[in-house]
């Protein structure tokens, strides 16, 4: 068999493998750019960058693409929005508000909604994308923490992510406040109250931000600058840093055959991920556009312009500010009076102290965990949530804590929709915010430990086949088969025992606080089986399989013993 070599590029070391002659237009352009910007090396590096594949790695991408949608739709909105509190008389197309005095901000929001072509759609797309931006950041954070992707060397990226969450929330709140409708005005009024509740400096902060007494003429233009310039620039910079660190650290991966702490098994950016990412961007844009087209969001024309004399039932912030609002709603009305001044603990604690403290806790989680475990190794392989029971339980407890306040933020809606008393809901939640997380912690930890035991069971005795075997003696048992090797390998990659050094002791020989925490962290943690245990179990299984082999392959049709059976009637009553 001869080979036709005429179509193979001639390359014997002297010429380049590329066909000689004039380069294509695209090639020429690429060469021009490479000679001046050096993009060749960078794009080669990025295009061959390997990423592992898993659905949960794409949650952060939802946030990234929602942010792009926010930038695009936000630019559109700034073309028509007038960030001014100058009072004008509305004369636009929405009849029920015609002739009403309102700020230019509100009037231009109504114009965007009713007189600018596609304006209402894009306003709603912008607002839905904002909701999804923060929601997807949160589920991305859950994924990272539950799988242990926050461990060394990724702590800084966790801090950046937590900062993005805080900035995203502030960005959302400033955007929510811009239209100057009844809802956003109520929100600003509430924010003014929150600031004033800060002891000593509160009033000064409020006057500084509002340029005098609430509401003044400055707050909307100031929030506008913060919303379209300051926070977006910070978000953009931090998202850039987040992604650069992601590339620098390399993406974490699930354990499996061939996957180690030193490599990344997956597909390259080009062509795999570039197409997947582009596709997901269009899907995200499509979903936000569909939401914007089908679901109403913040119908400002129904709220009408803000006026400090008005308020509406169902005045809530957007969901991401809902939990401090809930804390405020269920807080007992504690106030102190010293030297003629009022100290509003009932506002200061739930809205200022609690969110800042919660954010600090989230920020410090990786460091707290590393301090407790004493783990100083790098981790690039992910952990299943069950294999870190205390960590998983801690985060679930935090989630329950958050959800309880969330529910409190909607207590009035819950009351009217489920025919409950708003007071009873409040009393219940006052207890539940403390007891709920404790219960969630205990249940989740035990659940994880049970799952660890189940994993060991599967490793030692194989998986349940669903085939029930009856031995000649009449005993029944289920047939187990060994796990596929790949799966068993992935399950046994995890560390054995405690990560850090042996806990240090105090001088008097008693364990330190840190040592006690470490003991608690690893308490009841189930280790994977040892090699001896595994081989013993496999030996046992082989023996059993050998014994059962004789009975293997016999179909049971229910009539196997028909010939041997004798009915009770034939038997004599007494012998």
């Amino acid at each position, binding site marked *: 068999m001869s080979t036709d070599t005429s179509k193979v590029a001639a390359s014997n070391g002297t010429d380049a493998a590329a066909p000689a002659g004039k380069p294509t237009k695209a090639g020429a352009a690429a060469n021009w750019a490479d000679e001046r910007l050096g993009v060749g090396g960078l794009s080669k590096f990025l295009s061959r960058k390997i990423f592992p594949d898993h*659905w949960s790695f794409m949650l952060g991408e939802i946030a990234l693409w929602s942010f792009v949608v926010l930038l695009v739709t936000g630019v559109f909105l700034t073309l028509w929005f007038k960030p001014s509190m100058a009072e004008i008389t509305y004369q636009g197309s929405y009849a*029920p508000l015609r*002739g009403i005095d309102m700020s230019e901000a509100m009037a231009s929001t109504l114009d965007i909604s009713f007189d600018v072509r596609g304006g209402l759609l894009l306003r709603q797309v912008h607002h839905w994308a904002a909701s999804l931006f923060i929601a997807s950041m949160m589920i991305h954070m859950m994924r990272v923490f539950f799988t242990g992707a926050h461990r060394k060397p990724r702590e800084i990226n966790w801090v950046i992510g937590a900062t993005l969450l805080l900035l995203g929330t502030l960005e959302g709140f400033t955007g929510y406040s811009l239209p100057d409708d009844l809802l956003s005005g109520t929100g600003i009024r509430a924010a003014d109250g929150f600031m004033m509740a800060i002891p000593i400096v509160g009033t000064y902060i409020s006057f500084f931000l509002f340029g005098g007494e609430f509401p003044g003429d400055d707050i909307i233009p100031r929030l506008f600058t913060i919303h379209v310039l300051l926070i977006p620039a910070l978000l953009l910079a931090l998202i850039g840093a987040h992604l650069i660190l992601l590339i620098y650290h390399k993406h974490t991966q699930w354990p499996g055959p061939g996957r180690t702490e030193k490599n990344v098994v997956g597909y390259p950016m080009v062509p795999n991920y570039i197409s997947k990412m582009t596709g997901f961007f269009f899907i995200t844009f499509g*979903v936000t556009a569909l939401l914007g087209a089908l679901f*109403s969001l913040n*119908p400002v024309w129904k709220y009408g312009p803000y006026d400090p004399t008005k308020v*509406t039932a169902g005045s809530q912030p957007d969901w991401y500010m809902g939990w401090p609002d809930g804390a405020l709603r269920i807080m007992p009305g504690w106030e102190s009076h010293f030297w003629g001044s009022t100290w509003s603990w009932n506002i200061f604690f739930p809205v200022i102290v609690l969110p800042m403290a919660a954010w600090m806790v989230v920020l410090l989680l990786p460091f707290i965990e590393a301090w407790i475990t004493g783990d100083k190794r790098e981790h690039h392989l992910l952990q299943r949530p069950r294999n870190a029971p205390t960590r998983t339980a801690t985060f679930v407890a935090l989630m329950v804590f958050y959800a309880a306040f969330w529910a409190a*933020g909607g207590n009035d809606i819950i009351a009217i929709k489920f025919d409950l*008393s708003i007071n009873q809901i409040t009393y219940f939640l006052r207890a539940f915010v403390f007891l709920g997380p404790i219960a969630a912690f205990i249940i989740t930890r035990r659940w994880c430990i049970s799952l660890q035991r189940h994993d060991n069971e599967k490793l030692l005795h194989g998986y349940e086949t669903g085939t029930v075997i009856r031995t000649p003696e009449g005993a029944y048992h289920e047939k187990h088969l060994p796990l596929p090797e790949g799966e068993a390998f992935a399950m046994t990659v995890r560390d054995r025992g405690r990560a850090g050094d042996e806990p240090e002791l105090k001088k008097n020989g008693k364990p330190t606080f840190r040592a006690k925490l470490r003991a608690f962290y690893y308490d009841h943690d189930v280790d994977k089986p040892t090699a001896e245990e595994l081989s013993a179990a496999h030996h046992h299984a082989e023996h059993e399989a050998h014994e059962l082999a004789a009975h293997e392959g016999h179909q049971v049709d229910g009539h196997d013993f028909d010939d041997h059976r004798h009915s009770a009637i034939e038997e004599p009553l007494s012998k």
Partner: protein
Amino acid sequence: MRLLNRSVGRLSRHRRRPLAGAAVLLVALLSTGGLYAAFSPASQAETEKDNAALVAEGKELFMINCSTCHGSNGEGITTQNGKLFGPSLIGVGAASVDFQVGTGRMPMAQPGAQVEVKEPSFNQDEIDAMAAYVASLGPGPAVPDKEQYDPESYGSEKEKEEAVALGGQIFLTNCTACHNFTGAGGAMPRGGEAPSILNTDPKHIYEAMLTGPQSMDTFSDGNISPEEKKAVISYVESMKEQPDYGGFNNGALGPVTEGIVAWVIGLGILVAFATWIAAHTTRTNQTKKGSAK
């Protein structure tokens, strides 16, 4: 009304014919005369006699259906430990009866935080009779005339539009704090609620403002004038007719349900897509079909 407008539009094609003006005048005169004859108040004596009969009929209904709680003479009943079993109805006026019985709140199924709205137990004639009886116990607000609350009774479209704009501002100042910005309702302490007014009859909205049922304030005519009350009703009615410009209104309850939509529908779809995208890939641990084991 929209139907009427349409027929007027169809008429307009014939409006310029020479006899049209005369014909319209004739029809108008005849119908006005006929309507006057049908609805004109009868002589004073006759009205009084009718009213006495109505009060008597109302008293009979009252004795059977209401007196258990409100007392045989509508004076109210106080329990032995000093609590109110049923309040006195002296001076509550016909409007109160028309509202409470006409919306099915009375007779009450059971005492509780909130008197539930049900299917009315009486027809309008019976309600009128009971209203007349209660009105006879002491002076109180009367049932409003149709033109006092009917948003269709404005002279022109422009007048109505102005009333809607005015009513909207009064509504947002006085009503939304409890009933929510769309009128979808809100919570009150201890299991009570400011009910949704989205399905409430304009007459009953007027009467509620006038009499202040349950936790609601009484908006007397000195507080919100009759014209302003009508404007509020016009706004509420116009909101019912208004399409939801932004799409599905999520129950018109504000940011709570919007947040639920974002999390469940928006994020739900996107996570489903993420799973779908990740599932469509070549796998490193997948064996080729047909290849040897």
